[in-house]
């Protein structure tokens, strides 16, 4: 490639990089992180709340068809074992966030989720709900203890009528 064209390429890239970073910031704030983009993960947040370390857990609560079996708890990793761990939390946030109106999931979407849950639990399921928990941990006498747990939300996705 001719030297002048290479120089122009560098100038374009040097202008483009900060501009795309601005766009990533704006689009990411309004919608979601765009792709493709020349950014690395920021891990911006500091997950500390009033001196305790805050973590969020999502758990599927599965009610079997048979009354003899109690409610089964399954983690997202158990229901979607093919999903890489690095993508699982993003997938759950996008599809099973607290604000999502599960009524809008199509019959096909519900059937697919039901199949996944039944495959993971090994029994027929009639109700699927999602529980979102916040756990708070702190140090006591040199070891980490679970200070408190709060159920943020429990929403029925399938069944329950």
């Amino acid at each position: 490639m001719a030297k002048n064209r290479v120089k122009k390429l560098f100038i374009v890239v040097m202008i483009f990089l900060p501009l795309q970073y601005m766009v990533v910031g704006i689009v990411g704030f309004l919608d979601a992180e765009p792709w493709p983009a020349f950014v690395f993960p920021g891990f911006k947040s500091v997950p500390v709340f009033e001196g305790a370390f805050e973590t969020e857990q999502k758990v599927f609560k599965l009610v079997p068809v048979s009354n003899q079996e109690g409610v089964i708890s399954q983690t997202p990793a158990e229901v979607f074992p093919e999903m890489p761990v690095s993508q699982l939390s993003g997938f759950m946030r996008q599809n099973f966030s607290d604000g999502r109106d599960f009524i809008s999931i199509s019959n096909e979407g519900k059937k697919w989720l039901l199949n996944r849950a039944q495959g993971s639990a090994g029994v027929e399921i009639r109700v699927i709900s999602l529980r979102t928990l916040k756990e708070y941990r702190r140090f006591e006498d040199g070891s980490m203890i679970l200070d408190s747990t709060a159920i943020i939300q429990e929403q029925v996705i399938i069944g329950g009528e």
Partner: protein
Amino acid sequence: MKQSSSFNRWIFQSYSGTPGGLGIFRIVFAGFLLFFLIPGNGTAHFEFLSSMPADYFNPPPGPLRLLDGYPPLLFYRILRLTIILSAVALLLGFFTKKVSIITGVAVLLLQGGIFSVGKVNHEILIGMVPLIMAFSNWGAAYSADQYGGQVSDRSIETWPITLLSLLLGFMMFTAGFPKILGGWLDPATQATQGHLINQYFENGRQALLASAALKTDTPLFWELLDWATVIFETGFLFAVWKPRFFKMFAAVAVLFHFSTMMILNIAFLPNFAVYALFLNWSAIHNGMKRFFSKGGNAEKYIYVTVSGLTVLLFGILKWISIQDMVLRNSDLMLHEVVLVSFALFIVIVIIFRHFLNRNKTVF
């Protein structure tokens, strides 16, 4: 005028190289891609993605929004096959420039298909390395092109290395800058420790030194890590202008990723494909030439040996890794631990040699 010439020097003279050195890097990179960096977790992962209804299709803002659902399994299979074939061709140096571009585009397309679950993994550099290095003439040596008489010009270009350093430096800055805004430098809270607890309990990343780190309740230690992370990541961008500093930052990056892997169980292997570019491949090539020159026909011996060893060693490592004999309850793979540890070993050797003054061209 002076500014223009220093700009020129930065673009064209920051990094030196030889056709042989770049040729060896190309072979190692292609093997690395072939065995460890193909996006996705294989057939089961692709079957899962293509089976998902459109309800769960959440492409990130960008070209993927043109689709209205997950692509069929054939899309993933064709792209994976394209990457495998083009990586093999890249390793051997068949139509090197064209297959470099094909490899980069196929990697980016496959990544797009995978990220439509609603989570972007920041691995764009895997595709950018072959796309940009295509213009370096990295197929000028140790390639089928060379032996088949397809290489008319043996001169190489090093500006693609400078361009990749700019991309890497900028991307590192984008990792560090939000941390300043997010409060990482606030001495009252320890962000790294918070993320360790997050990864440990939310994602079950409890392998290697994670449990030991979890028991460490020394705010000063964690705060130092917070500050070191921010300074290192933001500083990367400013090191772009001085190749010597940039190489030092790349060396520190290896240490950074090693510690991140040990504590947070995140290896971030794709970045190592870029860090490796800043090794002194010309020196490695010269060492090989000296070793093989005794038998005559050194060029062909080097080509066969580097290609064969790359495939053999990476192949064995990958095979052992997928047997899942160790790290069973972790998403971290054995090959990630081995490769990141090996990279740290290389860095330690380079630093040692640098201080012993045996090789002044290291940094």
